[in-house]
């Protein structure tokens, strides 16, 4: 069981999800519908996992993610109606630990929440495909840019995730432990987030936002 917070501007959704999570034995410490509220509440309650919608009336989900930064112990699982690949990538690069569509089943949601609460990243095949594509895109970016690279093993693991294999199946195929597979996956996401943060900082310095 974990302490959770649900942030979604759709009241029916909020209620449905928090009820499902409550029934599964988790403690939902707050249900909120706005980004700023959510930021304050997350900092105050420090739930293990915040389930965050991207579409909020004041701040976007991505802005909430950026504002939270890394010094917050709360992990964020995005639950969005949008499957647009740009939205997914942006959320993940801003620090989300997982991205689920609202069409995911209750069982999938519960599994994702538990994995995120345990500190693991939730990688759907679709997300793995996007991350692979993003690394390849960055590889083709102008050379002066610092760009993150995947090791051969990481590429191999990500490809298998994208092809729908479970961590267990991947572990069996590559003669690794499931934990090692999970670590590889986690690292691919970590490098991307780090790169994204570095870019944001560089952008801020270049444009003088930093001076304030």
């Amino acid at each position, binding site marked *: 069981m974990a302490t959770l917070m649900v942030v979604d501007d759709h009241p029916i959704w909020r209620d449905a999800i928090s009820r499902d999570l409550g029934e599964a034995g988790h403690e939902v410490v707050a249900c909120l519908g706005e980004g700023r509220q959510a930021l304050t509440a997350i900092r105050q309650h420090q739930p293990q996992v915040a389930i965050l919608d991207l579409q909020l009336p004041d701040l976007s989900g991505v802005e909430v993610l950026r504002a939270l930064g890394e010094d917050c112990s709360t992990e964020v699982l995005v639950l969005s109606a949008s499957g647009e690949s740009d939205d997914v990538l942006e959320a993940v690069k801003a620090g989300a630990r997982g991205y689920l569509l609202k069409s995911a089943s209750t069982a999938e949601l519960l599994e994702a929440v538990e994995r995120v609460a345990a500190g693991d990243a939730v990688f759907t095949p*679709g997300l793995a*495909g996007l991350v692979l594509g993003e690394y390849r895109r960055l590889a083709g970016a102008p050379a002066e840019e610092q760009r993150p690279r995947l090791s051969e093993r990481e590429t191999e693991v990500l490809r298998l995730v994208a092809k729908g294999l479970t961590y267990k199946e991947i572990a069996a195929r590559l003669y690794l432990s499931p934990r090692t597979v999970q670590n590889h996956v986690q690292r691919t996401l970590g490098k991307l987030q780090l790169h994204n943060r570095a870019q944001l900082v560089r952008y801020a310095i270049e444009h003088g936002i930093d001076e304030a």
Partner: protein
Amino acid sequence: MGIETQLRRAITVFRFAALGYPLVMCAILFGVLVRPVTALLLVASIALWTWLVSASYARHGFKTSLLYADLAATVAAVVASAWALELSDRTAGISVGPWQAGAVLVWAVSGGRRRGVIAAAVISAVTMLFRGGINENTVSEAILLILTGLMVGHLTRLAVEAERRMRQAAARSAAARERERLARDIHDSVLQVLALVQRRGNEVGGEAAELGRLAGQQEEALRTLISSESYRHPLDGQRDVRELLGKHSGESVTIAAPAVPVRLPSRYAHQLAAAVSSALDNVREHCPEGTHAWMLVEDDRNAVTVTVRDNGPGMAPGRLAEAAAEGRLGVAQSIQGRIEELGGEVVVVSAPGAGTEVEMRMPRPRPKAGGHGDTDGGR
């Protein structure tokens, strides 16, 4: 208002202004005109024609018959001026001057540089024939006239083309904006509700579960529809492979692909998509109900690779070769044939109990030297 209309108006203004030349000349040299009344009549009829033809262009546009009539009238005016505007004290009479350029301008604007040059040549030839033969004056006049036809015709084509492109771009960006607005609305409302119906339906079970399943299908379909990205990234002569494959996404097929367009020349993209369809058909045909398929689209600059994996029963090694030997060429022909025809390769990996994986690699043709081979996948 289009560029042609604007040019037509400018020409009308020019033609009336150019009428000033024979008018002023007649006024100054009235005393030495051999046939003053005829001269006035000619200038008056030129003015009348100018008004008539301009009004007709305004109403009917540049109609071919009107263009020929205009050129004929101009030629007639040039011929008539040699006699009607004759002066008693010098060899050459008054000419219609710049007015004759009006017909050249109209021909150039309506038909491009070749038409412009033709009109200019006709008028120049007539001038030389009836007004003093080939001399310094008539030759330089002819050169100016032909240059006018050439340049105005050329520039008009450029302007019209630029206008057309601008209009296309504006329409495209308006369509994209509208689509994005729609997509946002749909995300905010319809998709949420459909997802909710699916969720609750599954929990209630029975008939409601069926309703929930249908809602889920609709959600998927709608999602594919609004995420089609070709509107945002116009691709000249190329297709986004993701878009062609998107239709397969559904309950039993999961697609993983990059966030940026995966471009291939149209023929390659369609061939690849057809091969993928065959691979999926194969899964449906040979695997039990409930088998799931995953599709991974990868773009490594030199080639696009699509992998289709299923969690079906799989095949014993050599099964494919056996089938081919027996003359049943399903997979071999439709998948390998399509991919290998364009220089790609297919790898099939399968084992009993471990599903089947078909990896199709379609190379990007090298851009031809000199052509603009802009195939980079970046944004």
